[in-house]
């Protein structure tokens, strides 16, 4: 609570010092610019990303939404400019519009209008929610996202969050057994089944990130730069190149299976010993190794063996800081999309769960401020955000 008070004091002090610029922010937002003048036109080169261009032009990586907004505005009148739907995905050859620094600031206010809310909107709840057990996937924990955003929740709601970072399968099982109060996972089918079976309530979209196919720089299968993930996997299989699968029934493993199913390769169907209806699909051959471990261990094994693997971008980028030789070879296919959902454990089934805390957590997780934190997480370190905010409130505010 103390740190929250400190933050409030800081906010008030800032308001006084700067003559209250925050109060004028909503007017920027309401009068969204209809057109924009380009001070500079830039064609995207290999290895460019928006924040990198933003830093070059304005000296601030965080101004990248302004470039995207300006380019999209320009696209409406001149089709030679690109249409940027996803700030993380820009293609070589796209023409971008870089407005003047002043215009960029206006656009930035517009782009981030929703999060620029006055402190009164974020008034803390009066009662503390106490201990909250969050079962989540290893990717949210390993990437450092939770460590970056959870202190805000704990301060605002007087909560102490215990994070259990496991595979999606185990996270959902913890929810089913009432051992967790809220789950944050990424496997849409499982999530829906969890809610349908009555174990969970109030499922909300939170964010997404994407998967990438990693491999050694030498790329024996020759898949670098391919945009069709099924064709890339087929090529890995046909060249008998070593592929490391997590094989742990996690969200990433489930995604990987759907990708193999998208190829026309013959697959083995392995029945689960426990539940005959649950089938694991895997390609045939010695080149495919299933190690049944988390993303971190899988990256280690793949790196050691110079093998291919499927990883979420966040965990991979976090690991690049600690030295990993694997490089991104295939990305950008829409099938590599990875949405995260948050679900409260049903208090009717397990009366002992912290239902109030779970509801507060879901509200907080999908709130504009948290969504803003999510979309900024990782930019400073990697030059690109690790997750893309995707809650209903956020998407509504962005329109």
């Amino acid at each position, binding site marked *: 609570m103390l740190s929250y008070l400190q933050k409030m004091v800081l906010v008030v002090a800032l308001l006084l010092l700067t003559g209250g610029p925050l109060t004028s922010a909503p007017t920027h937002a309401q009068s969204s610019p209809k057109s924009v003048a380009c001070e500079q036109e830039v064609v995207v080169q290999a290895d460019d990303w928006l924040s990198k261009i933003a830093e070059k032009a304005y000296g601030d990586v965080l101004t990248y939404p302004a470039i995207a907004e300006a380019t999209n505005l320009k696209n409406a009148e001149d089709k030679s400019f690109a249409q940027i739907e996803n700030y993380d995905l820009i293609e070589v050859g796209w023409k971008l519009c870089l407005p003047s620094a002043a215009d960029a600031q206006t656009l930035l206010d517009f782009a981030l209008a929703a999060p620029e809310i006055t402190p009164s909107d974020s008034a803390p709840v009066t009662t503390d929610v106490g201990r909250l057990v969050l079962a989540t996937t290893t990717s949210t924990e390993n990437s450092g996202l939770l460590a970056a955003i959870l202190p805000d929740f704990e301060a605002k709601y007087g909560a102490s969050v215990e994070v259990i970072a496991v595979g999606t399968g*185990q996270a959902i*099982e913890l929810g089913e057994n009432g051992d967790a109060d809220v789950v944050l996972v990424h496997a849409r089918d499982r999530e829906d089944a969890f809610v349908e079976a009555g174990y969970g309530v109030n499922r909300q979209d939170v964010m997404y990130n994407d998967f990438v196919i990693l491999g050694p720089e030498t790329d024996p299968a020759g898949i670098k730069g391919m945009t069709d993930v099924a064709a890339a996997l087929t090529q890995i299989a046909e060249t008998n190149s070593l592929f490391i699968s997590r094989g742990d029934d996690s969200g990433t493993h489930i995604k990987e299976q759907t990708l193999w199913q998208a190829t026309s390769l013959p697959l083995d169907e392995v029945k689960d*010993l426990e539940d005959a209806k649950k089938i694991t699909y895997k390609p045939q051959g010695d080149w495919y190794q299933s190690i*049944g471990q988390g993303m971190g261990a899988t990256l280690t094994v793949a790196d050691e063996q110079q093998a291919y693997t499927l990883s979420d971008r966040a965990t991979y980028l976090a690991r690049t800081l600690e030295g990993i030789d694997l490089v991104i070879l295939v990305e950008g296919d829409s099938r590599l999309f990875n949405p995260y959902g948050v679900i409260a454990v049903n208090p009717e089934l397990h009366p002992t769960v912290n239902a109030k805390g779970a509801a507060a957590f879901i509200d907080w997780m999908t709130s504009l401020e948290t969504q803003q934190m999510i979309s900024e997480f990782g930019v400073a370190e990697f030059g690109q955000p690790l997750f893309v905010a995707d809650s209903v409130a956020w998407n509504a505010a962005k329109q």
Partner: protein
Amino acid sequence: MDDLIRGIIQAFEIIFSLNPALYEVIWLSLSVSGIALVFSTVLGIPLGAAMALTRFPGRQLMTALLYTGMGFPPVVIGLFVYLMLSRSGPAGQLGWLFTPKAMIVAQTIISFPLVAGFTMAAVMGVDPHLRRQLMSLGATPWQATVTILLEAKIGVIVAIVAGFGAIISEVGAVMLVGGNIEGKTRVLTTAIVLETQKGNFDLAIALGLVLLLLSFLVNVALLRLQGKAFS
């Protein structure tokens, strides 16, 4: 509680299901730990006997090191072996990482201090006059040592049992250096971790019971050896 009961029922179903993947896992567990145990026995019993029967400078320090080794966390040994065998490590050229060979190396290092330490304790427990008596009867030092070891047979078998118990049930090191690769380096303990992470608690319990049963059978076999020592 349901999970536990279902797990026990399922354990028996699984054991009698003759599932080839399961027997592969059981066989690998037994062979990796078995081979590691042979290595640590061949190295550990002579060392334990030598440390009990001879006096040399630094013996106290060596005893302290041995006892420390007995309580050393297996996962740290796994980490050490991993760093040695890693592509960027000194023995990376061997290409042993993520193969059963790496697991045998790690398990040998884990069980060796246990076998040597318990052997030393057992041999020291033998009446010290026996050695002098044997020597006075004209035995060579080698003959005397073998006779004393036979005398300490019960304790030496306990040493082997302890070494086996430590490695068959070990998970951290084999996960680290073996990689839990399906059909290649997956053993019972790493399979249990995997099934728990997948949320298959029933199957995890079933595998745990298989491990327990296996350990029981091996111990019965070793104790039969010990039983013969009494007769």
